[in-house]
């Protein structure tokens, strides 16, 4: 068999990656795109094994297939078992694994290229980026997961981080040019890179994590590409660069959707727990409360209700109750739909994924542009655990950090009911004037608990 056939397989795999990613950005073809890329990946992996030139011992084959088998089982099970709402953290975790893989490759290959400064440079670059991506992703995972609650900020952390970054550069440049390719230096660099990944992510607020994950994602891509450069391996090169460039663009697109420059995300402007807490206490007027029983009656007599879900719905895991509520209201002849803000929740599409889990009809999810004109014909808007995405300050107050972000214009509806646990602020850490408006009533309590009560009250109405 002609072993050169591997290059054709690699070309095939690269093309599936490109086409797959392209198809992933269109709702109709997304799922097939993912499968296509997976097919290419399988071809690339097994092609690499079977069309390898040279003798390979059985032990090594055993280890390779062992690693692949183990990875497949663990990866498959974790991915299948995880809750819908825990998916972002899982993506982060998998990303970290990819980064670690790149770093390990670097650690091993270093010894085989001691005579080639260019290769050493490439290896170190891939190793550093992989390590940063690895440790950064783990921190991001811990933050989203709740294991690591607050943003931990060393004093002058921005300066510190920048210094470490420069240090990493200088250190590796020194190693390459001086030709001192010792074990000690290698592991020193490795440790420094791991440390930098931790310090880079740890001061960033938990809510910014999706953006950070997307950024680290493109880092891992870059690390893979360095590996490709090292081996002259086309599929690693193209796959890595593809993710590197597409991932960077995606990061910027996500920032844009949140009206928040990437610079602020990394160097911190808001989004850390402290500010949120601080601003949360300030009240700007009087608020009116409403209880579940009164609300149930009011809803019963409405013609059209729009539900605005937000981050709190995901936190409370109230997606099933809300579906039940919707069903009950529809049975009573009330028209119900969901108004989805593009950045509601903590990841793009968060609300869609969440509500899809409880089988909410796709047609009932209305996008911001389509639903905004509808509020004026709406009797009641129920805001569940959303805050920033309905904050009128985005339109009126030019000093507000969210100024300019398009919002759901709930204030045009006849009545607004807001469910949250307290008067605490949301992601942006700012107070929301909407809560103090005349037509707004607050329904305090955990979303799942309160909505369950509401459902029971509605059932009791018959």
């Amino acid at each position, binding site marked *: 068999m002609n072993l050169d056939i591997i290059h054709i397989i690699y070309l095939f*795999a690269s093309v599936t990656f*490109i086409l*797959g990613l*392209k198809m*992933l*950005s269109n709702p109709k073809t*997304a*799922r097939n795109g*993912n*499968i296509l*890329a997976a097919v290419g*990946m399988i071809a*690339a992996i097994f092609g*690499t094994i079977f069309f*390898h030139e*040279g003798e390979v011992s059985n032990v090594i084959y055993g*280890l*390779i297939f*062992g690693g*692949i088998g183990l*990875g*497949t089982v*663990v*990866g*498959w099970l*974790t*991915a299948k078992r995880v809750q819908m709402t825990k*998916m972002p953290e899982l993506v982060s975790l*998998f*990303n970290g*694994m*990819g980064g*670690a*893989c*790149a770093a*390990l*490759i670097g650690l091993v*290959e270093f010894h085989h290229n001691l005579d080639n400064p260019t290769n050493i440079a490439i290896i170190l670059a891939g190793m550093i980026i*992989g390590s940063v991506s690895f440790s950064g992703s783990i921190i991001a995972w811990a933050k989203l997961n709740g294991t690591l609650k607050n943003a931990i900020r060393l004093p002058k952390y921005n300066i510190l981080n920048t210094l470490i970054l420069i240090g990493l550069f200088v250190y590796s440049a020194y190693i390459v040019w001086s030709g001192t390719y010792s074990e000690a230096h290698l592991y020193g660099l490795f440790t420094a890179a791991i440390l930098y990944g931790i310090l880079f992510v740890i001061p960033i607020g938990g809510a910014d994590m999706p953006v950070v994950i*997307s950024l680290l*994602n493109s880092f891992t891509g870059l690390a893979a590409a360095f590996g490709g450069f090292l081996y002259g*391996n086309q599929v*690693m*090169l*193209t*796959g*890595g*660069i593809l*993710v*590197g*460039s*597409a991932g960077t*663009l*995606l990061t910027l*697109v*996500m920032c844009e*959707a949140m009206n928040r420059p990437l610079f602020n995300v990394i160097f911190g402007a808001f989004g850390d727990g402290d500010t949120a807490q601080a601003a949360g206490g300030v009240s700007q007027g009087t608020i009116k409360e409403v209880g579940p029983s009164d609300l149930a009656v009011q809803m019963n007599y409405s013609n059209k209700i729009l539900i605005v879900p937000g981050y709190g719905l995901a936190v409370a895991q109230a997606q099933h109750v809300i579906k039940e509520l919707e069903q009950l209201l529809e049975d009573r002849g009330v028209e119900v739909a969901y108004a989805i803000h593009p*950045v509601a929740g903590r990841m793009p599409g968060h609300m869609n994924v969440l509500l899809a*889990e409880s089988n909410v009809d*796709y047609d009932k999810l209305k996008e911001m542009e389509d639903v905004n004109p509808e509020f004026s014909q709406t009797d009641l808007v129920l805001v569940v655990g959303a805050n920033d995405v309905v904050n009128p300050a985005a339109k009126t107050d030019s000093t507000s950090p969210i100024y300019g972000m398009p919002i759901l214009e709930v204030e045009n509806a006849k009545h607004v009911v807001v469910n949250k646990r307290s008067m605490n602020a949301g992601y942006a850490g700012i107070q929301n004037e909407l809560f103090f408006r005349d037509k707004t009533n607050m329904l305090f309590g955990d979303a799942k608990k309160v909505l369950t009560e509401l459902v029971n009250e509605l059932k009791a109405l018959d």
Partner: protein
Amino acid sequence: MNEIIEFFTQHKDMIFIVVLMVFVGVEVIGKVPAVLHTPLMSGANAIHGVVVVGAIIVMLNSEPTNYIAMGLGFIAVFLGTLNVVGGFVVTDRMLEMFKKKK
């Protein structure tokens, strides 16, 4: 300076591929609806799992007596596969959710 140019010349094809791929990456994304940001990120995440190919190459080239290299290589293959398989499966699950539109 001359070293850089020399490096460039030696790897000119690779560098061309890199530059073109950057264009492809940027163009391919284009206008993606916000709903698909997460699956797209997740799909891209699975694709960079191609780094596992590098780990396999490390293993294939390692001396059967170099236990450290073999150990690290094995872990690398395992982690890389985790990235690939987990990445594609999670993406598929996300997209499955969206499918329920009828």
